[in-house]
């Protein structure tokens, strides 16, 4: 173990001398290089653009999504789409003004870039038709007749057509007071290949549609993934304001703590530089900023601040011992090099392991976070001491450090009770109780959305109000789940296929949570009945293949593919809650297992709920995979650094407790584990391990000198412990204000991060000495001393 760790960690330890001499040899050129890099990367960072993508949110190698991507071309309009509902405030939609407005809106939407024009549907598009059976046979036509002129008679005709077209509840509200335009979007334009610009689209929807047409008589409601993302991106400005507030609070509190202007401004400046470098590097590598990764820059800032405060604190202590600014900075650099580097490496590599999760958004977040951490090594471990060596920490701070060190009776004394056997047992027992409570509560943690609408936004946000409007007034919810029924070529309309699909749809309607379903079968049934004078006895799938063929002579787009080998069954759900989806997929799998064969296969899934089901599944396993990887990496690095399993337990146990309690908190607050919230717990581990490594390293330096644990711990508290407590509190206070953010996603994250900052701090300060005491961690270094002494003797001989 010793030899292995020595080999693996030799580069870290060996590099210190080189790094120290390089940085302090000629400080001005070093600063100039840093300044130049900062300017360059700042210029890059301001060019960074929001970069959202529908496909990035879904797990692309999940079988459901693979099936979807395989059949994507044949499934027009079932992927990414937006629905625009135009409503009248009084009366109904059968007025000339309304119809004119609807027509104009449809036309406006047609021309917006990114819209799949051929699949655009509204009562004003030619692909929406009515059919009727008369004595002469079938009669049909577009819902808006060719001779429409806005007169009362025309409007009557339209009303009739709508009733006959079956669009009530779909494109026309049940109460006839609004109509929908269904707008499918291209994630990537098929001709030009350019990605959909969500922010631009959202803007255009607002300016060209809502702002233009909304009035006293008419209201516009817009829903869809693209709109959520657009609103989130617009909310980014708000998010930034809250970051700014957190930054200011950190500034003020840091000054009050250190009473040193340089000791406040320099670490904060270096932390901000770290964020600038991170954003600049992301831009250079071709990434954009995802609305779900909006929090990563703040996280980088928070971790940078906690390291910066450690270094400034150590510089203050060295100054108190009489060193000038150059000497103090140099000694602090050397003293904190290994713990700082180890903590940051374990953070960085820990975040990289998030790449195992198959969702692009999370992989991008992993890259962004690891880049940020790597940059912190350069800005806060290297640049910060160099700047402080030139500026010094100031007289007042030095005096404070001196006084604090000489104070015999300090408040920290009380905490050393946890380093005594009684206190330690007490702490561990309490931790145990919390652990059990947390595990119990954490079982209630749900995967996926727990509420309807968009949980990233507030319940009273414009988007969610619009979403409720649409759900209330229409029969087809926005939650669609598509099962792709695959057959051999030209077999999609065979009797065997259709009758089985019919049975399938019947099976579906009996599943709780399913509102209705639509497929080729419905068309066939209705038209067959229509062909036979509307007789209800004929409203079935005919055994006669020729009758079936006749009934399918005109099929609306999206219900069949050109080679007749695929027929989608579109299922409308009450909601997209995790339970509903799980139930549904379970039942479909059962059916498929029973009925799949060479000729017919029931494959899942498309539609936004289909993707959600796939995502939920991936997240369910990913959640534990991710934690396992992060803890493995962090644990390994701690083990290599400290070369003791007992120390490993001391550092990891508080982290594990925090993770479990955080899950319990999420369950209590009704926050589900989704793509947006999944990485939070892993990020929390990254934040917390820094505290543990710093505290234990300092504790060890005293233990190695032979001090007893309580005394060693008191000294640790007076130095490193102070910084840890300060950082945890400050960041917690800065982040708790996010609760007031209009973006619910940010508010949720605020609560979770506050909890993690405070709890990690508490856990590190209380549990580490308690566990160290109980595990008798005194002897880590001592046997190693005798071996190194023997080595020295050998060499000198």
């Amino acid at each position, binding site marked *: 173990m010793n030899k292995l760790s020595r080999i693996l960690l030799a580069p870290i330890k060996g590099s210190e001398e080189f790094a120290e*001499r390089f940085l302090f*040899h000629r400080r001005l050129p070093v600063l100039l290089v840093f300044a130049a890099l900062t300017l360059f990367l700042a210029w890059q960072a301001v060019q960074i653009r929001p970069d959202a993508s529908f496909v990035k949110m879904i797990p692309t190698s999940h079988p459901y999504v693979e099936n979807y991507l395989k059949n994507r071309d044949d499934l027009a309009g079932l992927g990414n789409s937006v629905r625009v509902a135009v409503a009248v405030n009084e009366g109904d939609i059968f007025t000339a003004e309304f119809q004119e407005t609807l027509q104009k809106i449809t036309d406006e939407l047609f021309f917006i870039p990114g819209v799949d024009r051929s699949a655009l549907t509204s009562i004003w598009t030619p692909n929406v038709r009515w059919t009727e059976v008369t004595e002469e046979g079938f009669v049909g036509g577009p819902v808006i007749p060719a001779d429409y002129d806005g007169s009362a008679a025309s409007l009557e005709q339209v009303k009739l057509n709508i009733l006959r077209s079956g669009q009530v509840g779909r494109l026309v509200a049940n109460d006839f007071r609004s109509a929908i335009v269904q707008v499918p979007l291209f994630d990537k334009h098929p001709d030009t290949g350019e990605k959909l610009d969500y922010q631009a689209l959202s803007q255009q929807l607002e300016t060209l549609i809502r702002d233009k047409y909304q009035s006293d008589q008419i209201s516009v409601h817009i829903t869809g993934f693209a709109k959520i993302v657009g609103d989130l991106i617009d909310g980014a400005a708000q998010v930034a304001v809250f970051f700014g507030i957190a930054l200011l609070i950190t500034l003020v509190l840091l000054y009050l703590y250190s009473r040193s202007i340089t000791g406040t401004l320099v670490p904060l400046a270096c932390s901000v530089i770290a964020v600038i470098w991170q954003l600049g590097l992301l831009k250079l590598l071709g990434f954009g900023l995802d609305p779900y990764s909006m929090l990563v820059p703040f996280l980088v800032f928070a971790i940078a601040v906690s390291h910066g405060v450690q270094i400034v604190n150590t510089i203050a202590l060295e100054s108190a011992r009489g060193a000038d600014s150059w*000497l103090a900075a140099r000694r602090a650099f050397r003293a904190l090099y290994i713990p700082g580097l180890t903590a940051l490496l374990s953070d960085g590599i820990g975040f990289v392991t998030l790449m195992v999760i198959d969702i692009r958004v999370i992989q991008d977040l992993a890259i962004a976070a690891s880049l940020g951490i790597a940059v912190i090594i350069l800005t806060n471990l290297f640049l910060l001491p160099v700047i402080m060596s030139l500026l010094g920490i100031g007289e007042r701070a030095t005096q404070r450090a001196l006084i604090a060190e000489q104070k015999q009776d300090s408040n920290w004394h009380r905490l050393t009770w946890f380093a005594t056997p009684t206190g330690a047992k007490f702490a561990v027992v309490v931790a145990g109780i919390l652990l059990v409570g947390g595990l119990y509560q954490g079982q209630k943690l749900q995967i996926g959305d727990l509420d309807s609408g968009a949980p990233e936004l507030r319940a009273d946000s414009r988007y969610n109000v619009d979403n409720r409007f649409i759900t209330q007034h229409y029969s087809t919810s926005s939650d669609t789940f598509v099962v792709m029924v695959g057959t051999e070529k030209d077999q999609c309309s065979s009797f065997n296929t259709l009758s089985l699909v019919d049975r399938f749809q019947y099976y579906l309607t009996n599943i709780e949570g399913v509102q209705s379903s639509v497929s080729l079968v419905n068309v066939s049934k209705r038209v067959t009945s229509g062909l036979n004078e509307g007789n209800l006895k004929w409203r079935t799938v005919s055994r006669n293949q020729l009758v079936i063929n006749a009934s399918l002579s005109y099929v609306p787009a999206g219900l069949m593919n050109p080679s007749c080998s695929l027929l989608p069954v579109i299922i409308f759900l009450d909601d997209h809650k995790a339970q509903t989806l799980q139930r549904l997929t379970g039942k479909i799998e059962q059916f498929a297992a029973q009925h799949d064969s060479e000729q017919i296969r029931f494959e899942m899934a498309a539609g936004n709920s289909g993707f959600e089901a796939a995502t939920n599944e991936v997240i369910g396993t990913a959640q534990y995979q991710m934690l396992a990887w992060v803890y493995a990496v962090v644990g390994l690095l701690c083990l290599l650094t400290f070369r003791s399993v007992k120390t490993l337990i001391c550092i990891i146990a508080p982290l594990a407790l925090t993770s479990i309690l955080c899950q319990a908190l999420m369950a209590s607050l009704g926050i589900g584990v989704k793509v947006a919230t999944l990485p939070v717990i892993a990020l929390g581990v990254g934040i917390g391990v820094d505290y543990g490594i710093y505290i234990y390293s300092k504790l060890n330096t005293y233990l190695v000198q032979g001090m007893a644990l309580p005394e060693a711990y008191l000294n640790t508290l007076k130095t490193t412990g102070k910084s840890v407590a300060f950082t945890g509190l400050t960041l917690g206070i800065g982040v708790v204000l996010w609760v007031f953010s209009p973006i619910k996603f940010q508010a949720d994250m605020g609560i979770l991060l506050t909890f993690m900052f405070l709890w990690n701090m508490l856990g590190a300060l209380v549990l580490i000495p308690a566990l160290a005491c109980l595990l008798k961690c005194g002897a880590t270094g001592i046997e190693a001393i005798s071996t190194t002494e023997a080595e020295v003797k050998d060499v000198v001989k």
Partner: protein
Amino acid sequence: MLLNKRLLLVLDQQDDISLALERCHLIASRLQSAVTIVWLGDDQVKAEQAMAELMTDGVAVDLRYSTRHKLLKQLAGLLSQQSFGLLIKSCDPRESGFMTSMDGHILRDLPCPVLLVKGDQLWQDGVVMAAVNALTHDPHQLQLNDDVLMVAAQIAVVTESALTTAVACPSAMMGADPVLQSENLIQAKAQEALAAQLSRLALTVQASAVGEGPVEYWIPEAAKQLKARLVVIGTRARGGLKGALIGNTAERILSRLDCDILVLRVGLSDEVVPLIK
């Protein structure tokens, strides 16, 4: 090194030449070595004056002229033709911008020991301080330590001064090997290593200053504390890229010391060994 070998004296016309000249005079007359003066500048009168001063005690003097630009090349040429025991120069660590100083170049590029003169006190009955790196494991460094100690001892004997040593210990580093985590332990280890080295070389010192580094801080501190008149130190003489990036400690110390500095390069052992009596 010092006996029966020529001394090379570099005098810069623009600076105050008296210190270096005086020192050279003292050394040359004590050891009866020949001196070659390299005069930077073109004032023949002054140069010949200097030459005359040196020749007073029967010392053989040879005068050459040079300029700052050609100095290094000329010195290198001279050193390759004849073997010089010591290069004496007045200490001028001024750096022009980000470039290495002239002294730095001399320390890096020339193969002989260099004495940089800063003080005017006699070495006689004073204190000679040998700065060693007691905690190294590198064989070259260990050899250099030995050389430094031997040379310092020799000079102490010749000038009847007290021999002292100074060791700058690295400051405590959290998370490193346990011994390196505590100042006290590091210094205790350094003391032990130093004692072992001294006993191996059969030298006794009057005092040892073992303190917390970095080197650039502690060696000047120790020199002040011990009131050293001469500090003997080794250098790794890093040149090129490494020299540009991390530099040499010996060069860094030049500006912080106010006594004379004798710098030995890595690899001079074959010069020093024959002197051990």
